[in-house]
């Protein structure tokens, strides 16, 4: 790809992402619902952590109740910012609307991902302060070393991009299985468990932690979340490299899936 073509493509997909963010902003009730859900989740699990830990010793060296509440706020922030892109792709494949999208001089998949990223960006901006406010209230303040949270911001944003790419791959499976919800359901549960949504991987048995580290899921949640335990630039760098490596891997997989899907394309109604 030449530099000129890259700039032109970036402008096109950037414009699509901006329009999508504007749409998401217009759907205030959806946004408010997500923010409320994030607040409730952080509140409930903060109570759980309080009950489990009480005034006892730290569950993880360097991480007490306060850090664990902030960990939860970060992981939920990353996950809840990701829209259900797979449903949009599935709907286009089922209805045949994909035909309308393919007559434009842009990639269908690129357009879908740009739209999802626009919405993700807006959600990150809205849910970030919401999660932070609830965590601050429930934990009674910032983590002992709050500088780690600054590292969690870019890592969380990148983690959401990786999650968007994963859900795009799930959406493309509609070309083979039509109903993508079972695939999404499995993916979601793997993210919850292997990603460490509620519990940091430090609390997992060794075999499960080793298994989880072989998957992309810890980079999506545990990596950004553990920044709440303290300022750790080396750990942040590892997470960043993992996110980039998995991003390239999933990107290559998406390109292959997209080519295979085009070959299978039949359009409903002719």
């Amino acid at each position, binding site marked *: 790809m030449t530099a000129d073509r890259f700039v032109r493509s970036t402008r096109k997909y950037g*414009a699509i992402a901006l329009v999508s963010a504007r749409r998401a902003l217009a759907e205030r009730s959806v946004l408010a619902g997500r923010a409320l859900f994030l607040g409730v989740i952080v509140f409930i699990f903060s109570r759980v952590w309080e009950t489990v830990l009480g005034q006892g010793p730290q569950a993880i060296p360097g991480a007490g109740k306060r850090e664990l509440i902030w960990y939860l706020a970060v992981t939920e922030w990353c996950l809840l910012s990701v829209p259900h892109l797979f449903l949009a792709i599935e709907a286009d494949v089922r209805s045949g609307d994909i035909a309308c999208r393919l*007559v434009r*001089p842009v990639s269908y998949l690129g357009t879908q991902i740009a739209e999802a990223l626009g919405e993700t960006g807006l959600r990150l901006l809205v849910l970030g302060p919401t999660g932070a406010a609830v965590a601050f209230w429930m934990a009674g303040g910032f983590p002992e070393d709050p500088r780690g949270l600054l590292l969690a911001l870019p890592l969380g944003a990148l983690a959401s991009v990786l999650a968007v790419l994963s859900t795009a791959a799930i959406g493309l499976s509609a070309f083979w299985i039509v109903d993508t919800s079972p695939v999404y359901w499995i993916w979601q549960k793997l993210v919850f468990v292997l990603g460490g949504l509620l519990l940091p991987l430090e609390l997992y048995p060794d075999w499960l932690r080793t298994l989880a580290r072989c998957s992309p899921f810890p980079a999506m949640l545990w990596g950004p979340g553990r920044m709440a335990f303290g300022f750790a630039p080396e750990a942040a760098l590892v997470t960043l490299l993992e996110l980039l490596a998995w991003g390239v891997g999933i990107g290559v997989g998406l390109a292959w899936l997209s080519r295979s899907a085009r070959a299978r394309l039949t359009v409903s109604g002719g």
Partner: protein
Amino acid sequence: MAPAIELENLRKTFRVTERAHGLAGSLRALFVRRTREVVAVDDLSFAIAPGERVAFVGPNGAGKSTTLKILSGILQPTAGRVRVLGLEPGRERTRLAYRIGAVFGQRSQLWSHLPAADTFDLLARIYELEPAEYRRRRDDLVASFEIAQVVEKPVRQLSLGERMRCELVASLLHRPEILFLDEPTIGLDVVAKATIRDLLRERGRLDGCTILLTSHDTGDMESVCERVLVIHHGRLLLDRSLATLRRGFIAKKRVSVVTEEVELRVDLPGVRRLPSASHRTELEVDLDVIGVDRVVAAIVAGARVLDLSVEDPPMEEIVSAIYAGAARSVSRA
């Protein structure tokens, strides 16, 4: 001059899964998958010159939409040669997309949650239009299609007729050399249909773009096109000028009358009574024998008319007549 569109022996097949009926069939389908090949387009060849306005008609499942989707690069042909503006659509979809426009009547290319004006701005970015030229073109089209009052409303709040006018503007912004129209008037009322047809004819003349239109409505092809391709079971059945087709196959009109009288009697040469209900009479008028105006005058003179409409025969009937004619010529040969 090179043709704008050229097809040679185009063939498109799909594999469809067949499922047996009942629980046993469903269980068997878990282990044994039976598929069947369906031929959507079969050995189709034609060429369209730049600037021509061509109707591509045929009954449901004839292969019209599939052909349009192959021509616009959405679907890949199974066999045959396809050239659109000198490009191979399946391989050069993106390059071709800058030079063609498409409207699918049953689907929307507008972002439903946004005002149409925002979609136009976004399309200007996508088609990389020069800003000043884009604004001139948009303003011209908005005025021509009379949508200035509706472009700022979210598309989901527009009526079908308003939306379709916005769809057409969206497809014309980048000055396409070819416009593919798939059932552009489907679902519209009589007035909206007439408006869309007038606009299409006018824009075709002004922009000089080639139009390939599929429709079930003979009114669309009569109003917009100058040439007709009839397709049936994926094969080209007829390729004629509209004037020839009109003389040969659209020589009849249908008149539906609702009267206060239970039964309406019309004894005129060239008028045939079709199956009718009480108070509602259906007539077929042979235009070679008698004009519709004379038939309507006779009806109004002899009965208290509550409602009256004059329509073309359905496309299925025209295609059946053409098909029967083609079959007779084949058997004579």
